[in-house]
């Protein structure tokens, strides 16, 4: 019996030494297998109990069981110790968080579309539908139906690209007003974005191809104040919550009353002074707007005594220039990768 105890003590001493020496889980597992495994030393000892006299066997079994239990506890303790040490080591790690990131491969949306998206989202939230249409349009849609008959002086403002005598690349998105009103009875609430073309020489502020965004609301009890309300909302969506909008009287054949629409300069916050964006006026010109001319409503078989409406047509490049502080309209069409990457 004492022989067994002595063996166990000696074995236990070696086991504890192995646990202490173990620096990882694998070493612990090796120790477990060597002592407590299927053919481990303790297991072999347990098998040897069968050779003891029958009377001693239960006592020997208990001694071995107690030792095994203690060894398993020691093993668990060693595991915990190792685990805690591993955590400590892990948590002691320090990296340079300012090291450059691993960039995901990501494309980009053109700034013109970004501006358009925000405009459309704002108007859609208020019940407008976004409609698109052709870029080659008959002069009827571009002019006649919009109260610009042939020889009207206002036609001079639209130096257009012609395909035939009567077909041209649209110089504005207003034909979509006509198309929509021809197809629908009031209420009509649309945003019509798209490419437009005018025979302007290209410079920092002009492009023969540009994007316009048309807005049209026609219904009962639609007034000029609603236009101001929606445009104020739009400018806040685009340029920030403090924007306001100013109307100045102007002239367009398809609207009456007509207005030039300005918004407070987001670059200088309407202060003016030496501001590159607004030239010191504190205001940014957005484009033309007004109440749909009764002649246009009449042409669409809308009764101008019952229905009223407003329309606006703004250049998206202008809005993107102001929003992103872009210096030259040509940037939008050069598509320089470093330019585009800034809108990813």
């Amino acid at each position: 019996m004492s022989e067994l105890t002595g063996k166990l003590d000696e074995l236990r001493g070696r086991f504890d030494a192995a646990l202490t020496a173990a620096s990882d889980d694998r070493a612990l597992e090796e120790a477990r297998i060597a002592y407590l495994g299927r053919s481990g030393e303790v297991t072999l000892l347990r098998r040897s109990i069968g050779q003891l006299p029958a009377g001693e066997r239960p006592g020997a079994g208990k001694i071995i069981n107690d030792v095994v239990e203690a060894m398993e506890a020691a093993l668990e303790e060693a595991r915990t110790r190792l685990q805690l040490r591993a955590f400590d080591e892990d948590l002691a790690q320090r990296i340079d968080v300012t090291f450059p990131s691993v960039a995901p491969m990501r494309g980009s949306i053109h700034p013109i579309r970004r501006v358009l998206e925000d405009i459309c989202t704002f108007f859609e939230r208020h019940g407008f539908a976004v409609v698109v249409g052709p870029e080659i349009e008959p002069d009827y849609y571009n002019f006649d139906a919009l109260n610009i008959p042939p020889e009207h002086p206002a036609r001079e403002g639209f130096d257009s690209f012609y395909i035939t005598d009567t077909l041209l690349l649209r110089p504005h998105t207003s034909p979509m007003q006509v198309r929509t009103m021809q197809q629908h009875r009031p209420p009509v609430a649309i945003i019509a974005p798209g490419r437009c073309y005018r025979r302007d020489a290209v410079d920092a502020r002009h492009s023969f191809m540009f994007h316009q965004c048309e807005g049209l609301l026609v219904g009962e009890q639609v007034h000029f104040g609603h236009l101001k309300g929606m445009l104020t909302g739009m400018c806040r969506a685009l340029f920030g919550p403090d924007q306001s909008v100013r109307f100045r009287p102007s002239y367009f054949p398809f609207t009456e009353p007509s207005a030039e629409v300005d918004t407070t300069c987001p670059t200088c916050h309407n202060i003016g002074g030496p501001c590159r964006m607004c030239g010191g006026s504190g205001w940014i010109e957005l484009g033309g707007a007004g109440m749909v001319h009764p002649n246009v409503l009449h042409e669409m078989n809308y009764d101008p005594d019952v229905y009223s409406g407003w329309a606006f047509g703004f250049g998206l490049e202008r809005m993107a220039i102001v929003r992103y502080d872009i210096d030259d309209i040509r940037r939008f069409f050069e598509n320089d990768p470093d330019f585009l990457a800034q809108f990813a």
Partner: protein
Amino acid sequence: MRVPIAWLREYVELLDDSQTIADRLAMLGFPVEHIEERPQITGVVVGRIVELDKHPNADRLQVGKIDVGTGSLLTIATAATNVAAGQTIPVALIGAKLPHITIERRKMRGLESEGMMVSAEELALPPEWFEDGIMQLDADLPLGTDVVEHFRLSDDVLDVEITSNRVDAMSMIGLARELAAAGGAPLRLPSFDNPGTALDAPGVAPRVTIASADCTRFVTQRFDGLRVGPAPAWMRIRLALAGQRPINNVVDISNYVMLETGQPLHFYDDAGVRDRHLIVRDARDGEKLTTLDDVTHTLTPLALVIADEDGALGLAGLKGGKTSEVSPSTTSILLESANFNGARIRRMSAKLGFRTDASSRHEKSPAASLTSIGAARAATLLTAIGAHAYAPHDFGEPLEPAAPIHFPLRDIRRLLGFDQSADRTRRHLESLGFGVTPLDGDAFSVVPPPWRRDVKHRADVVEEVARMAGYENVPTVIPTIAPHEIDGGEYHLEQRVAASLASLGYNEIITYSMVGADSFAKLRLGNVDRQTEAIEIRNPLSEDQRYLRIMLLPSFLAHIARVDRPLRIFEIAHVFTHANDYIDETQQVTFALAVEPGEEHAWHDPHFLRLKGDCEVLIRELTGRTPETVQDSRPVLHPGKMAAMMLDNQEIAVFGRVDPRIEHAYDLRLRVYVGRMLFNRIPPYIAPRYNPPSKFPSTYRDLALLVDLDITAAQVEQTVATAIGEFCVGVRVFDEYRGPGIDADSKSIAVRATLQRYDATITDDETDDLIARAIAALHNDLGARIRA
């Protein structure tokens, strides 16, 4: 239009500074592009040269004794040569501040000079427009009068933009009227009574024959006893400030009246008009006319001319002719104050290729009533310089008063969104010259003033009300929009395409819609057929923008050549082609990879597969379904590296590598892979149905096959899937090999089949059995052998 504030002050009291006046004009609809600030000049007074002598010590100087109304004479030396005793001139006193100098007491060659005789330049007037030397003032000016104050030389000049509907405001009176109305100030108009005497003039009276419907009205009047010479200083100064060069008193009066009233005038030398009979008619084909600028025009009947019996005298509304030009010896003149059809003047001006200050007004159809006002002002001013005015004669249509407009006051609320009292509305309209008569039922009968031809409709009256109330009083209101059924689906599809491609790593670009003829050749599309299919622009800005694109590829290739860096780009734009008798304009998306060239197997192209994967993801995103890829052949793409993507046997996209010969034509170093999808081919999105996963594990087998070169991966996958049947949950070819160890007419293909049951764990025996079936089918259908 250059508008001297000094001139506006003739008609309306303006107490504000220039910026405030400019802001007020802008808020009335007349934006001020620029304020030209005038220098602040002081100490210049009217003086008279009493005596003039040679300077005792200098040959080139003269010394004058100048009376400036103080009782004593000033001694002033000058180098100017145009001075003479008796002249009335501006004199800068000691202490005077001129643009670049302050006048001090100083000695000129030993003689003390007590001031300076002043030229136009020193008063900040264009020197080349005035006499060379000392400026000449009118003799009737009281001596000692402050010149700057008298002529308001320090008042700024505004550059005002005037919209084409407001030709009535292309005049000093027109703008002054607006400022007076907006400021509630009185408008002080000069008399519009014509001082012409009713007495018969000697000889025949002037008469006009109007032989064209494009002349609505023509006032003529004869003046004699005229002495052509410089106009009075005040008139020359005003004209110069307004940007109009003074010429002589007759020309200056015509320009002055045009700028003042908006009515262009023309004067004929009475001797140059046969029988004093003016004829307004179409020009004869080939008729020649030399205009005042010595240009000889060969006319067509498109031109409208003023003629006498002998031939054309001038271009109506545009420019006078040489033969009847007023000369320094002219003493008798005939006035033309006429009204024409604006469209006719515009057409003629466009055809002849020039505009004048007169035509820029005539082409906007000013009111016919201005003709009499213009004549009256001209007669008044001519009389003031000593001419005798005979009776004016009117020809053409009688002046009709404007038709009254029924204006219900509720339109203010209905269209502007605010209320204002009937009294206020009436006061505003009347201040602009409208006649207002209240009617029953809260309405006005509104008669536009004769000079306003732009107000025809109720809505026009509403705008006047809004302008006078101030656009800043329009409220800011968010409308509530009633439901409607207008569909915005097309825009949303476009946004989804853009978002998908951006998420796949593509950068959106926007390129011009026009290309040159050379792009068709570079794309190997042939010259004739394709170009006739392409839409041609009649008036392109340049040859390389003559055609609308039939595809976006040429713009992409040009862009990639310019950037010369690996890129992923996409663009959504319209493409245009002729289709039978209409123009086919379609929204489409093109996306492209530009990659560095590298060594690849002839039978393998990873970039193609990358693009294919992007196409599949995009189509799945848009349609909810996975397309089938089929071999195809198209122009512009590599014949062995292109394919179409099909859904329900409809092609919805085409993609592949660009034909290397085209890459070469665009000087491309990079290789380009491009995909294109027409929006109208994209079927509606179908939500994919969910397949619940099996609770039982799946298993797979990989097969290495030897097949003939023409057997496709799709055929192998299809054959395996069909042979295994319902337990086949996936088949994918994952490798291909050709080369050493394999017959030249064969290739090795590796395929993985994944099997799974929904009702039980699939057993090894079942799996082996099904795979054996697949192998048999591969052998029977495709001649495939299992590779050892």
